[in-house]
């Protein structure tokens, strides 16, 4: 008997809808930032869109450093054998 398979995330239309929803959600978060009362521990925390910028930059930095790290640490799978 052939196993039942899902392909929800393979259909370009579905991916488009999900990406659309994702970008709308990002915009909503940016807008919401102006309507919430902040209880900041530090001045920068209260700055508009601080967390959005910090999250984006952090992820880029993490991945960039990882790529540089790989240059030094990458070895063949049988390196220790």
């Amino acid at each position: 008997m052939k196993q039942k398979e899902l392909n929800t995330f393979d259909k370009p239309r579905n991916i488009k809808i999900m990406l659309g929803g994702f970008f709308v959600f990002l915009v909503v978060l940016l807008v919401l930032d102006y309507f919430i009362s902040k209880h900041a521990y530090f001045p920068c925390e209260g700055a508009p869109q601080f967390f959005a910028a910090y999250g984006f930059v952090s992820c880029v930095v993490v991945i960039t450093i990882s790529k540089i790290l790989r240059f030094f640490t990458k070895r063949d799978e049988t390196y220790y054998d």
Partner: protein
Amino acid sequence: MIDLITNGTPPALIFILGAILIPFFKGKLKSAYMLLLPLIAMAVLLSVPEGEYWHVGFLDYQLIFGRVDKLSRVFGYIFVLISFISTIYALNVKDDLQYVAGFCYAGGALGVTFAGDFFTLYIFWEIMAVASTFLILARRTSQSQKAAFRYILFHIVGGLFLLAGIIIQITKTGQITFGFMELQGIGAWLIFLGVAVNAAVPPLHPWLKDAYPEATIAGAVFLSAFTTKSAVYVMIRIFPGAEVLIWIGAFMTIYPIFFAEIENDMRRVLSYSLMNQVGFMLCGVGIGTQLALNGTVSHAFAHILYKALLFMSVGSVMHVTGKSKATDLGGMYKTMPLTCIFCLVGALSISAFPLTSGFISKSMIISASGHEQFFIIWLILQFASAGVIAHAGIKVPFFTFFGHDSGRRAHEPPANMMIAMGIAAFLCIFIGVCPQFLYNILPYSVDYVPYTGAHVVGQLQLLMFAVLAFYFLLKSGRYPAELRAINIDTDWFYRKPLTVLVNLMGKFLNGLNATMDLILVQKFTGSVNAFAKHATASTICFFLSFSPKKNETKDTSNTSASSRLETAFATGTTPIGIFAACAGLMIVVLYLLV
């Protein structure tokens, strides 16, 4: 001993003694028995009020098997709970070694948790080390045997640090009970170092990322829960507020995320991510305020559940495909949708999305750092939070269940695995939605509201814009490609240069041994023996060689004289020998006559 019976059996002994009987049960009875053990332990935990129980006399000391207070109780709850879930997950395994090792290991962790004195702590600490090694050995591959060997060596060294510190401390104070200790003096530092090994503090961490991915599928779930978290518990118990822990913890949150990002083996990614989460906890211990310690305890509680869930979901894929590397997986959601959902719940929880357990626990630690005005630490923890979603939140589910289609079409894992993952996933969301259930059992009263507008929006911005960055980098081909490769870490020092050193030392010492054997045993000892045997005859021969001879040439005379003397000394028939024998005989005769 009476105390042991009147207050119920300590949870640690329920697990360890119960483990011994596991091989005697068969089939469904075995499953029922194994599920009953954590339930009995939980019943004991729930029924025993706070206080000190289960005293056992040892030499001149009283060992305390049960220091029950709010701190030990909450760790006890989660250790028993995860044992129950892990046991369900492992029910399809037909290997008693894993069951016995798993239960002894969990029992060791419970023993450490409720230990009221250093001796008890050390005994259970070592039980954990030995039992957990068998969960790695039980995979029965050449790689796992080697990894298990390195793992136990590392833990023996850590255990010796702990033991040395304990002995110094007991000698200094005369007390075996332990509690808060200033991080001053060699004893305290050795204890700290011993515990730091189990907490996988860099650079003492490589045993974790080396051994956990080599363990059995169910073994890795057990392993993810106990060693590091019991070390966190001991840190909370002994070194709360030790400032060095703030920096160690902060460093530990960022160091592993870079390695996790470029790692191919999903269970190794999770191992690095485990270190990152323990970093948050150690940072909380270092901050040491009530909010920070509550955050640490709740994060340990939440982390055990979602980390086990992630190991279970990746383990399930491994169970049905035999693969755990990103390069071999992808597109698994098509035939394993439920496992995929469970993995996503774990990924959301570890990323601390609102309405999941990670959100209500990790935020307490970060808020505590803000409350104490540790700005740099606060920035590092926020940075690490974004890093978590990049490697554990997205990478693990994306490259396993989505990403490029590997073409593998595996079915969902057995029902027991699904049930275990279902329970863990439910608890991750339940704790996130109803945090009071967890907050109510924390060591200090909780005056913290996780769900404020600023906090929810701020956290969602941090995470979602990190996802956006991930999306752009992936789309533009700048994300590190999946590669069939490994990455060297600090274990390189003892797996490469140290191996060369060991080989060189082996050659040098073995050569020295062989030379000494040749010189001392084979040559020198033989010469001494020969000399002792022939010394008298040789000496006399030497002196006889100077005496004049009449009818024989000197050489012939010397040879025959020396051979006669040799024979005479060998048979005891020299004039002196005969005379001595006669004298002895005379004494005997006189003795008999008189």
